[in-house]
Every structure is written in structure tokens, then in C-alpha cells.
């Protein structure tokens, strides 16, 4: 199973070489981060609060620049539209309709409403929001707003989708649903996903690789492959494999946080 799964991801797409970020107030947000992201990866960044996950994502998005090290993009030159970003909050424009919100990235590239229509409608149907084009954000539930936000991130067909704890504010039922929807989309399109999360369970369910980070200073602590085949559905959540993998991931996270004991038997597992 593992080789079949591995075969789907391509070669390196982005290599971070000893990337560091120091903020003006002498906070070392990231130190010597080395990481390779492959074409088609679903990579989770897992770590405690303040370990620099959001900072790393912003660096990758080009929203801020590293104070040391380089980001080495491979393959065709990455243009702006090649990166989609989904924030923790839906961050929609409250005055604009669902359609206009999703149209925005295309609009900023100069695509007219009429020309954007097929693409916008397609992503909206992919996130199950057909028929809500004219609703405004406050008429939607929290989960629906998040779907709009995901649709907006996908509308330019980016090659890399960056997600910063996109489902953290949602209830569990909605989160599970959106997890599955996201996986379905990803399996179909195989864009690269870098997914920041606090949740061990979410990272194991979604990703093929997990990078665990530690804080003070923010750094990469360890990495694990999630050797479970796709497609993953709700039965995966109850499987023995899943339980095993979450134990492994949480023990890694615990060591990253410097918590010993209790997890002793887990260490035996990996």
C-alpha cells in the first residue's frame, strides 16, 4: 500500500533550507528550519501554540520574508496565483455575496464576472454550495462560511494550498465533514496542501506526512509518514491503523513539547 501511495506524490516542489525568522522584538519565531515539500503532498504542520506554524506558512506564501535561509521553489516558476491561502477564520468580505467573495482572486487578476462565472460555479459545487451564490456571509452558518473560504482558496486552481488551522473554530461534526470534503477534492486534483493544525487526529486523518514543530525557538522537531492508503473515509477514523498512527503522532508531539512520562508505552510503539 505504501509504495502505491508514495508513487502519487511527485518530486520536491519546495525546499526550505535553514530558514529562520526573527521578529523586530528579538523573538526568534523560526530557527534553522529544513523541510522538503513534494508535489502533491498533504503535509501537516503540527505543534504547540507559538512554535511558528503561522509564521512558516506566511513565509511560504511570500507574505513575509525570512531573515535567514532560502525558500527554494522547484519546477515551473511560481506565480502569485499558484498559491491559495485559507485562514483560521473564514475572513470573507461581509458586504459581498458568496459569488463575489469567491470571484475575488480572479477579479484581482482582471478576470471579468462573466468570464469567472464557470470557474466560480465549479468550485462552489465542489464545496457543496451551489445555490448560495447570492447569499451574503452573515446568512451562512460557520461551516458554510469556511466552505466559501476554501472555494476562494481553490478558485485560481493553485498548485499549492496553504491552510492555517482552517477548521479550528468549527464543531466536530462540521469539522469531520469538511475534512472528508477536503480529502475528496485533494484526491481528485492532487494540489499540494500545507495544513497547519493543533489536532493530532486531524493531521493523521488528512495528511500523508506530518511535520512536528517545537517552540522556543520555533523549529522542526521531527517528521513522520502517515502510511495509510487513500481514499480515507469515516471508517478509517475507527480503524486500528488510525489509533496506532495517532498514538505515534501524539507521542512525537509530546516529546516536542518536552513532556515525558505517561507516554512511555507509546514510545515502544514507534
Amino acid at each position: 500500500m505504501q509504495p502505491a501511495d508514495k508513487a502519487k506524490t511527485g518530486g520536491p516542489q519546495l525546499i526550505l533550507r535553514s530558514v529562520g525568522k526573527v521578529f523586530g522584538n528579538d523573538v526568534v519565531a523560526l530557527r534553522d528550519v529544513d523541510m522538503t515539500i513534494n508535489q502533491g503532498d498533504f503535509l501537516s504542520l503540527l505543534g504547540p501554540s507559538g512554535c511558528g506554524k503561522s509564521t512558516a506558512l506566511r513565509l511560504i506564501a511570500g507574505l513575509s520574508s525570512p531573515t535567514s535561509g532560502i525558500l527554494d521553489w522547484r519546477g515551473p516558476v511560481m506565480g502569485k496565483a499558484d498559491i491559495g491561502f485559507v485562514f483560521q477564520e473564514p475572513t470573507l468580505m461581509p458586504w459581498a455575496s458568496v459569488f463575489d467573495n469567491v470571484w475575488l482572486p480572479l477579479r484581482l487578476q482582471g478576470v471579468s464576472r462573466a468570464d469567472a462565472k464557470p470557474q466560480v460555479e465549479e468550485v462552489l459545487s465542489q464545496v457543496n454550495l451551489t445555490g448560495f451564490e447570492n447569499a451574503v456571509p452573515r446568512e451562512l452558518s460557520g461551516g458554510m462560511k469556511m466552505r466559501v473560504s476554501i472555494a476562494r482558496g481553490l478558485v485560481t486552481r493553485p498548485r499549492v494550498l496553504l491552510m492555517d488551522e482552517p477548521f479550528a473554530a468549527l464543531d466536530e461534526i462540521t469539522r469531520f465533514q469538511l475534512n472528508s470534503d477536503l480529502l475528496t477534492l485533494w484526491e481528485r486534483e492532487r494540489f499540494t496542501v500545507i495544513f497547519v493544525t493543533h489536532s493530532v487526529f486531524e493531521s493523521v486523518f488528512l495528511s500523508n506526512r506530518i511535520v512536528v514543530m517545537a517552540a522556543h525557538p520555533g523549529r522542526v522537531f521531527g517528521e513522520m509518514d502517515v502510511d495509510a492508503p487513500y481514499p480515507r473515509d469515516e471508517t478509517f477514523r475507527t480503524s486500528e491503523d488510525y489509533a496506532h498512527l495517532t498514538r505515534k503522532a501524539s507521542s512525537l508531539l509530546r516529546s516536542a513539547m518536552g513532556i515525558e512520562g505517561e507516554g512511555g508505552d507509546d514510545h515502544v510503539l514507534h
Partner: protein
Amino acid sequence: MSSTEMQGHEAVMIDAEEMRRARQRKMEKTGKWLLPILIMCVAIFMWDRICVWNEIPRYILPRPGEVLATLIEDRGLLFSSLVNTLKITFLSLALAVAGGVGLSVLFTQSKWVEMSFFPFAVVLQVTPIVAIFPLINIYVDNQTTKLLLCAWIVAFFPILSNTTLGLNSVDRNLLDLFKLNGASRWQTLWHLRLPASMPYFLGGLKIAGGLALIGAVVAEFVAGASGLSSGLASRIIEAGYRLNAPRLFAALILISFTGILIFLVLSFISNRILRRWHESALTQER
């Protein structure tokens, strides 16, 4: 059995509670209109009675009926004066909107511009217009321009400061999203900053509407001393000289009704615009 009874009882209780609340809402809604009107009527009635009981002469305090009669009798004069005042008010409000929004857009384009010019806007705002007017009187010849300038100075500041605040109160993540998609400065302004500042701007507009009227009237007052203006304020001054209290009251009432009307119209416009998205304009439905 007892449990179903309990449930039934509870359901009735909830319904009663819901009904009571609905009734209260309805009462509050009518009360909002009815009570002020009622109090107003009582006050007018008391005014009338006090005049009669104390035998106050009409050149000191006219009875409400007399004021109303004057309002109707002198309507030609009064309303043409009102139109003059309104012209100044709305023209200066329009200029205040243009100036306030224009300047605040300029401010958000560059921190330096804001740092350099905002203090002057504050100086203009805190100096009493009555104290500035003599200067304006010296430098500006045209009567209408004088009044406009005066009303504009009073009205533009709330629009400037509110819109500046609004243009800067944009969700940082949305700004990042625009940056990520390579938005130009102009695109960010047009698609993000201006719409986001709308509620702030409209709040400023509501204040500025009232201030423009006040500015226009005050300007007329000061200018009226030189006997050239023809707005409602000069009617008041004139009536004061002639001890024509009924007309004075009539003019006063016209001014305050105009102020109320301006406020209501601007509130209505603002509610219309924000109806679908902003908290301040949401109805009870949630």
C-alpha cells in the same frame, strides 16, 4: 403520564413566555413613537396654559397657536429662507463628504501624509467657528462662499476622522489575501478599504449632517450681523430686533424640524446601505 403532563405544561409555559415577549416587543415599537409625541403634546399644552395663567405678553412668550398661525401666515418668507439655509447645508455637506473622504483616502495612502496633515484638521475642528469667521469675512468676498466655507469646516471633520478610522480598520487577513493575489493599491482601496469603511463613513455622515445645518445657521448668524444673508438665522435675528416672538419661534421650530429630518433621512440611507451585512443595521430576525 406525569412526564407528558409536565412536558405539555412546559410547552404552554414557553408559549406564554414567547407571547409575553412578542407583546412587549410590539409595545416597545409603538411606544417608541407614541411616547415622545405624547410628551410633546403635554408640553405644548402646558406651554399654552402657562401663557394663559400668567398672562404672559405675546412678544415675550407667544402661545403655541400663535406660533402655528405665524408659521402659516409667513410661510412664503420663512420657507424661502429655509430653502436658502438648506442650500448651504447640503452643499457644504456634499463638500464635506468629498473633502473628508478624499483626505482620508490620501491619509491611508501614506502614513507621512497623515502625520503631516491630521493635526491641522484637528486644529480646524477645535477652533470655534465663530472665532474663525471674522477672518473668513476679511478674506472672502462672496457671501455664499463664506457661509459654505464656514459650514464645511464644521461638518467635514467627523467624516474625515471616521473614514480614516474605517479605511484603517480592515481585516489584516483580507489585506494579506489581496497582497497574495497581487492586488494593486487602487484595487485594495476600491474593493477592500472603501467598502470596509462604509459603516464608519455613514456614522460620520450622520453626525456631519446635523453639524452642517448648525454650521450654516451659525455662519448666517455671524454674517447676518452685517445684514446680508437671507437664511433662517437672519429671520430669527430680524424677529428678535422687532420683538416678533411668534416668528422667532416659528423659525426656530423650522430649524429643529429640518435637523430632525436630516438625521432621519441619513439614518434611513445608512440602514439601507448596511442592511445586508453590518451588525448595526441588523433587524431582530437573528
